[in-house]
Every structure is written in C-alpha cells, then in structure tokens.
C-alpha cells in the first residue's frame, strides 16, 4: 500500500497532467504513508512558537493547493516564522533532519510552485507584510516578502510614484511570490515584468546562511549578479526575507480603450500595426469570444457578446502625448476592420474594464468547471499566427479553448475548458497543450511567459531550453542545495 501510494505520488510529478492517474487530483489523505517525526515537529514549534506551527488535518488540507488546477499534495506542517533568524533555523533544521521546505506567499501561483512535495513543511511568508521604507530620493522601496502587490501600488501611488507589475491576482498575491515567479501582468508591454524592478534582496540560502545582494545603486558590477539569479527561481534557491524594488514616477494621465473585431486575425494584425507606428501602449489585452461572454456574465459591464474578439488598450504618459497616441491607436484598430472603438469616459470606467479583464481566467469557469490555463509567449509579430494555430488545435482535439492574454507582449493564455470528472476530456486537453507548446516554440516563443515552470510545465521545459541548459540548472541547484531541501522537484526533477 505504501509503495503504491509512493508510486502514485512520484507519478504525479513526472506528468504535467497527473489526472490520468486514478487517484490523481486528490491522494487519499487519511492513509498517507509519511508522517513527520514528532521530534521534528517539536523542534519546529520551538523555533516559531506553538501558535505559528499548524499540523491539524484541516490546515494540511487547506495548504495542499495553490491556484494551479488539478494539483495538490498534503504538507506535514505549516509554519509561520516571524524573523529571518527563525527562517534560517528552519532551513538548517531541514538540512539536519532531511525534510523539504516549500515557501509560500498567498498561494495564487498557476504552475504549482507552492504546492507541497513529499515530506515537506510549508513556510508561510504571507504575514510578512510591512512596507519598510519608501525612499523618494532614490526612488526605491524596501518591502517584506508578504506585502500584497496592490497594497504596494496604493501606497506608492499616494506619493506620485509607480510600481508597474500588476499580475491578475494583484489584490492578494505577494511581492515575494512575484519575485520568485518573475510575474508579469497587464502592463508588461511598456513597463516590463517583475525582474525589471528588483534592485536587491535579503535571502536565506538553502544552507541557512543569510546574504544581501544588490542595493540602491543603479550601477553595480561587483561580482556575479546574484540578485537576478534568485528572480524566477521559484523558491528552489532561497527564501526572501526582504526585497528592494525600483519605483518610477507615476504617469501623469492615461486613456483606456476597447476595440471590437469580427475576427481574431484582425485583432492580431491591429496589434502589429500599432507597434509598427512606434507606439508602445501600457496595455494591449486580447480576449476571444468565449472569454468575452464569461467575463460579461460575471462583470456585467456591457461588453457585446456577439463579436469574435476585443482588444483592451491603454496609453499613458504626458497628456498631450496620450491624446495623440490614443487617436493613432484607435485609427490603427479601425484600419484593421475594428467594428467599433470605444474610449472609457472616466477613471472608474477604465478601472472596471481592467478589473473585468483580470477576472478572465476565473470567469471562464462559468462555462465549464475545470479551467486549465497555459501561458505561452510568442514574438508579438506572430500573435495572429499563434491564435490561428490554437483554433486549429482546439478543433483537432475537440476541446473548448478560451483564449485571452497580453497580446502586446505576445503572452497568451489559451485555457482549456474541461471537467476534471471527465478523464477522456482531460487526456485530450493534455495532448492539445503538448501541441500548442510545440507550435509556440517553433514560432520562436516559450512555454511560459509569466507563470513559471513549477510542476505543470516541467516536462516541456526542454522544448525551450534544451537538455544541456537543464543540466546546467540542475548542477547550480546541486551546488547551492546539495540536500535538495528547498522546493525540490520544481522546474526540473532533481
């Protein structure tokens, strides 16, 4: 029995779609083979205090998942350290007692980065939510890793500053998680992603030592650029205890528009012709028909449900420039057969449109309960081609796919709409994704733009990086974490 369960656990992580397996989406909690030694649990309690160490079945079940569909695994305990020394002690204990650590923010990740692994504890950093220092002379901010992204936005915008990365879950996701996954968002096209704003950090290494890297200077070439190395490491190389971010002046004004199209190709072409006019909008979001219908059903903002696709566009900056660029953008859409271009009349209306767009992924669950989304990215010139490929693959495998995404930076989220109780459908979805990944890579793109590799896309990583690169990553991981205690098995197998 133990062996059987062990095999099914291993199987879980070797496949991107573990649901092929009979007891895939949930393992039988009541008969899990491993239980952490009481002695280790008492030591953990000694480090963080009894009130910050949870081992009840209810707690374990509710930390067995993150935002990723279909994956879950029970941790042995959940701990909430309150100082960097405690984090360090926990990591040292893990090396001695040989258990794994999975760091966690708000648990909204979409590639399984914070899903527990075998014999692990969750280190919950979500209570580290202080903004430590906003430096208005150097335009930087020191934050603790549990600060919620939208809270940071609100705080710095109060004093006319701006932190652009805005992932879909920004109302709850944490900066620590954003840095670990190198999250993007709606403003990626013009402003880049999280990595473009990280200036430094304090990290607890896999051996429990604490280092600082980076700093407030724009220029710094002393030694290896370690801070960039931790960005996007998905919790496999260190646990952040403090993060230094870059801020920029808040754009003076912005204009938000909607353009409706009767074909996806036209929308794709409109994006290319906007960029060809040397305009970089802050946001160019694409929604297909299925997504539009679900979003409208949830948000009720008056989107037409009979069009094939829409673009949500935003230009920002100096008022005169915004005025001129908005007109050019609208014209580019019209020239590519937009049936209508609408400009948001107020900040509130613009906010509503963007909030509705952020709900797209979850809103798709209105049509079918299990929404498995992907995160492919292609060079933006190839957007129209990729959209067509997705449609073809959807037909080929008879899988309903809703597609939305950041058309401006080539990052699309084709989402398979399935029901996890229908095993055959899930198997077809897996095949469809395999092909979508291959096509994206062929077009010069990648399998994930902003969600991370985690567990979900592990088996496709080689398509993009090649096996030698994965070997290199593996040797780096081994050098830094010889016992494999930090989030083992994420990104690649150890």
């Amino acid at each position, binding site marked *: 029995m133990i062996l059987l369960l062990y095999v099914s656990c291993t199987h879980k992580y070797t496949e991107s779609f573990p649901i092929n397996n009979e007891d895939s989406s949930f393992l039988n909690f009541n008969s899990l083979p491993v239980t952490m030694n009481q002695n280790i649990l008492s030591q953990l309690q000694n480090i963080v205090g009894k009130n910050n160490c949870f081992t009840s079945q*209810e707690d374990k079940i509710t*930390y067995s998942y993150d935002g990723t569909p279909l994956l879950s695994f029970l941790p042995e305990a959940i701990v909430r350290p309150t100082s960097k020394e405690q984090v360090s002690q926990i990591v040292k204990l893990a090396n001695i007692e040989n258990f794994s650590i999975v760091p966690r923010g*708000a648990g909204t990740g979409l590639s399984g980065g914070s899903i527990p692994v075998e014999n692990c504890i969750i280190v919950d950093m979500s209570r580290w939510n202080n903004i430590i220092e906003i430096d208005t002379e150097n335009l930087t901010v020191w934050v603790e890793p549990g600060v919620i992204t939208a809270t940071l936005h609100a705080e710095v915008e109060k004093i006319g500053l701006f932190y652009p990365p805005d992932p879909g*879950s920004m109302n709850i996701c944490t900066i620590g998680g954003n840095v670990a996954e190198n999250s993007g968002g709606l403003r990626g096209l013009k402003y880049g992603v999280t990595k473009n704003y990280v200036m430094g950090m304090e990290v607890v290494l896999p051996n429990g030592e604490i280092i600082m890297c980076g700093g407030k200077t724009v220029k710094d070439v002393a030694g290896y650029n370690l801070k960039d190395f931790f960005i996007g490491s998905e919790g496999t190389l260190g646990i952040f205890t403090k993060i230094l971010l870059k801020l920029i002046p808040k754009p003076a004004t912005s204009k938000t528009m909607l353009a409706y199209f009767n074909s996806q190709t036209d929308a794709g072409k409109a994006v290319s012709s906007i960029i060809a006019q040397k305009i970089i909008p802050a946001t160019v979001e694409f929604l297909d028909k299925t997504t539009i219908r679900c979003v409208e059903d*949830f948000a009720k903002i008056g989107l037409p449900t009979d069009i094939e696709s829409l673009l949500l566009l935003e230009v920002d900056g100096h008022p005169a420039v915004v005025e001129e660029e908005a007109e050019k953008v609208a014209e580019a859409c019209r020239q590519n057969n937009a049936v209508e271009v609408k400009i948001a009349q107020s900040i509130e209306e613009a906010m509503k449109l963007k909030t509705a767009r952020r709900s797209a992924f979850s809103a798709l*669950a209105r049509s079918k309960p299990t929404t498995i989304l992907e995160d492919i990215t292609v060079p933006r010139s190839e957007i129209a081609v990729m959209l067509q490929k997705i449609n073809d693959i959807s037909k080929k495998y008879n899988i309903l796919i809703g597609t939305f995404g950041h058309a401006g930076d080539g990052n699309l989220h084709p989402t398979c709409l399935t029901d996890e109780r229908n095993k055959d459908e899930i198997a077809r979805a897996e095949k469809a994704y395999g092909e979508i990944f291959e096509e994206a890579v062929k077009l010069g793109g990648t399998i994930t733009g902003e969600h991370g590799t985690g567990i979900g896309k592990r088996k496709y990583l080689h398509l993009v990086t090649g096996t030698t690169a994965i070997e290199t990553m593996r040797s780096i991981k081994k050098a830094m974490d010889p016992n494999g205690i930090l989030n083992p098995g994420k990104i690649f197998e150890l």
Partner: protein
Amino acid sequence: MAATSNSGNFLATDIPNDDFLTQCMHCGLCLPVCPTFAITGREKSSPRGRIRLIKSVAEGKLGMTEGFIDEMNFCLDCQACETACPAGVKYGALVESARNQIRLQGKQGRGEKILKKIFLRNILSNKNQLKFVAKVLWIYQNRGIEWFLKITRIAEFLTPKLSKLQELSPRADREFFDETHLEVIVPRNPPKYKVGFLSGCLMNVAFSKENDDTIKILLHHDCEIIIPKEQVCCGSLQAHNGDFETARELAKKNVDVFTQYQFDAIVMNSAGCGAFMKEYGHYLHDDPVYAERAASLSGKIKDISEFLFEIGLKMPEHPFNKRVTYHDACHLVHAQKISQQPRTLLKKIPGLQYVELPEASWCCGSAGIYNVTQYEDSMIMLDRKMTNLALTECDYVVANNPGCLTQMQYGIRKQKMHMEVIHFVTLLRKAYGL
C-alpha cells in the same frame, strides 16, 4: 458514521452540490474580501479553504471533525466571496449545506444545539411564541429589571457572556406591528401598485417602527398594501444555520399565503428575508407541489430600495440637510446584488450630502445570530466597521437590515459616537416629513 459511497462522510440527504464544489478553481480571488481570513490569515478560514474542506468530507478524506465544524461556524455566510468570485461559485449554498449536515449528524455543540433548536426552530417559527417572548423581553427591558441588574452588576457577575449579549439583543416593542395595522391598507390616491408586505418575525416585534415607516413610504408612492395575517417567518435564519427542514416548511406556508393574491411586487425591508425569499424557488425546486409557485413568488420579491428605484422615487418637498452614508447589508449587496439602487436614491434627495463609507460592503459582524454564537469574532468585525464609520463624520448611517441596525447601534453606544443608525425607510420618512 452512516455514509453512502458517493457522499463520503456526509449523509445522503441535501449533500453539498458537487458541481458547485468542482467549480471552485481555488484561484484565491476570494481571499481579500473574506472577513474571517482577514482575522486569522489561515487558509482554512477562507472561502476556498472551506470549500476544499467540504469537498474533502464529501470525498471521505476528512471526517466531520471538530476543526471542520469550527470553520463552518466561524464563517459569517456574508457571501462577499460570491460577489468577488469570477467563476460564480455558490459558496453560501455550500456552507449552508455543510451546516445542515452538521445538524443532521447531531454534531453541534450543546449550547448551540439548544439555542438553534429553541430559538430558530420553535420561537422564530411560531408567531405566538415569539410574541410571548417579546412581551417578556419588553417587561425585562422596560420595567427596571435590566436596569437593576446592570447597575448592580449582578448580571455581569452571574454570566459575563450573557450580560454582553443582552446589550446586543434588539429592544422589544410595546405594541407589535401586525396588531396595530390592518391586513389591507389603501392609499389616499387611487392605487397604482398592489404590493404584498412581509412583516417579518423579529421586524414584527422589535422593529415595528421600521415596518410602519415602510408602510408610510409605500402609501406615499400610491401603493395598496396587503399584509397577509397568515404569513409566517421567512425561514432565512433557519436555512443559514443549516436547518433546511424548518426553513422549507416555513417557505411552503408563505408560498401558500402570498400566492393567493395578484401582487405587482412583494416588498421587503429586511435584507436577509428578501435574499431568502428570492431563493424559495431554489429551495423548493424539486418539490412537485410547490416548485412552480415558489419560483413565481421568488420573482416578485423586491427590496424596498429596489422597488422604489424601479417605480421612481417621489422627491421630498424640502431639502434634507444632513450628511448621510450607506452600509451595505451582506444579504442585499452580496446575496441580492443590490448596491447602486439605494445609493442612487439617497443621492437624489435634495440637500442630502452623501458620503461613501470605506469598506461599505464589509460585514458588520451581525450576520443573523453570529454575534450571539461567535461574540468575540463578531466584535472584531464591528470594530472595523466603527473605525470606518467614524471616518465619514456623518449624521446618519443607513442600513436596510434589522441585524445590521442592532449591531451598529450597539457599536455606536459602546464607542459613544454621535451618529444615528437608521433604516432607509426611516430616513425617507424624515426627508418627506411624514
């Protein structure tokens, strides 16, 4: 434990809906709006966490443990998560089913069992018993007993918890609403609308004034009002606390009573009652005798603000120069999705200075009988509401639900704030000078 193969550790009747459970994709967008998650920061106290717990029990992977029951009771059932959920998961229905299962399996705590059985099953569900209790309460509150126990601190000494609760209990009326009003009330002008009115259970004995104000406002808008004598408590508190049988019996009785008339609308002044009566169709959907009539009744239910918004509010003749804010009752904003109508109407009143309340749709902690069953947690929510109310510096805060009125009135007394908590209809009546 009597479990069937497909209901896990739940009994086979009224199991939490599997489609609703599967629809939750645990994306986490519910986390920032959940008042209990805000307190503990623990996943098990969050909507997606509770859904996962219910799913685990349904799949036989978790027993009906004390921890499970605690979390189901800790939930306010405010349904803010439903408003936030892009996937449209019916969280409230899931938690209520889980609570029903807890009751069916006899797993409630002793105090809770007694409270829910006596209070919800008997007293609220039976008009005469409720009136008797209200009369006793009136004597207690108004003939010096409460005052004596309070100043001598005897009550505090005997049962500290109960003495706090007495502060939270509504003030019983000397005369009850249904005893002072006729069954059919006609306006001075020829009636434009024929409306039914639910006088309610608690509203009838402790909020007669608000009921009377509602009647005056409806008359002012040329409505003929029928208050059927045979009507009973709507059943919402019973259903929210997981007693589906009693709730269904009450619902059936009201369906029988209200469908005898041809109403343009049935008007509610209690958000909880309105929300639940709009769900009658759902609760009785597989009852061959009642399904159709229940659905048609549900279609007629209107909150007073929703109704006035639709028929057009008459403008007061004189300016009403007051600063006013609006608190969203959970069962209006989240369960019935009514938030713009009352605000729009308030803003139309000449002279009225409307101030938006920060976190207006955040639960005040009343939540039915939550402030009785989970007093300490409820007070944390109330403190947050009071802090936000203080920021508005208003003369009045408007709330369309008896629970919210009592809870915030308690908060204002406790913090000695200069603000009055009133029902929407009471404010309108002041504005009209009726």
